[in-house]
């Protein structure tokens, strides 16, 4: 249900950005790292849209795969490779706070925890399209 908190942030940002102009479409990117439950997130967005009289607004959700890179040896890999090995506690912790992965995931090549997230971290608004644009 922490998806609700993120959905609230999205709706509030759209509202602030619109400044009374009508927004037609918004593209929201969802990084794979955070393991957002898309159905809950979508449901929360729909409910919040109703509460904020934004029924006509179309919100497109796009998932971005998470890619990690070791800052020491340069190895690049997909987070989906780590995902199958994570226990429930670690997966849940990363779901709440993606940066927590630094405490648990190491480079598969050299073992360093000094890892960069190249793509697919969290939730962000990629594009806003006003009506008539």
């Amino acid at each position, binding site marked *: *249900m*922490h998806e*609700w*908190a*993120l959905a*609230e*942030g*999205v709706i*509030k*940002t759209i509202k*602030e*950005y619109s400044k009374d102009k009508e927004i037609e479409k918004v593209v*929201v990117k969802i990084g794979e790292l955070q393991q957002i439950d898309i159905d809950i997130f979508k449901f929360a967005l729909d409910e919040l849209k109703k509460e904020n009289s934004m029924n006509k607004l179309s919100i497109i959700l796009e998932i971005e795969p998470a890619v990690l890179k070791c800052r020491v040896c340069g190895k690049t890999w997909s987070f989906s490779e780590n995902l199958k090995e994570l226990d429930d506690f670690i997966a849940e*912790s990363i779901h*709440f*706070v*993606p*940066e*927590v992965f*630094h*405490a*648990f995931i190491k480079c598969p090549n050299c073992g360093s*925890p*000094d890892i960069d*997230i190249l793509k697919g*971290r*969290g*939730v*962000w*608004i*990629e594009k*806003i399209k006003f009506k008539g644009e």
Partner: protein
Amino acid sequence: MDPRLSIINERLKNIERIIAVGSGKGGVGKSIISTTLALLLSKNNKLTGLFDLDFQGPTCHLILGAKDKFPIEEKGIKPPQINSVYFMSIYYFTRDNPLPLRGWEVTNLFRELLAITRWDNIEYLIIDMPPGVGDEVLELLKLINKKEILIVTTPSILSLNTVDKLVKLLKNLNIPIIGILENMRVQPSDIVKKYALENKINYLGYIPFDYSIEKYIGEINLFMKTKFVLNLEKILHEKILFKK
């Protein structure tokens, strides 16, 4: 566009006072003072939250006795109440593992935690600031609207030299300073009082070094009876709780 930025102050808007305990210097007792302050406010019937902002060396959970706790997920995350204090820390998610982070990652972590944490109806939020004036501190100063800083120092030239850097930063940004609290005093000294006077900062008083507190870490009932806590309680009543 970062959707978290819109929601952070929304989450904090009903809190009466947000007090960040800082120093710039490590090892002066910020965490123990932050935690005790939260416990004392709670003891005085104030609904109080405590946020350990030290992501790389969190310790408030040890003082509070928060082992094995985890936040409740409810349209965000709700900090569990531990010894009557609503407590949030990165410790819940990392446990005792090191968390090696670089600049932007610290910023992301700070924003994420503030955006998803629901403090509900607390009246006071105490924030334990990490040492230095790095990313966590800059994010705190930039993103949290209503905040007051409580400065902690030891009566040491070295400590005061670092404290002075934080004070300069706060003054440049016009951020209210509640006052300066002298901790771990082992012998008579007036350097902190003089520093406060010269810099027009309220001198809150001093807390003598209490050798007993180490053995009561995590044992709240015994900890709350120590001289350290009694001394801080006196200062809290005289200089912090009723100061507006």
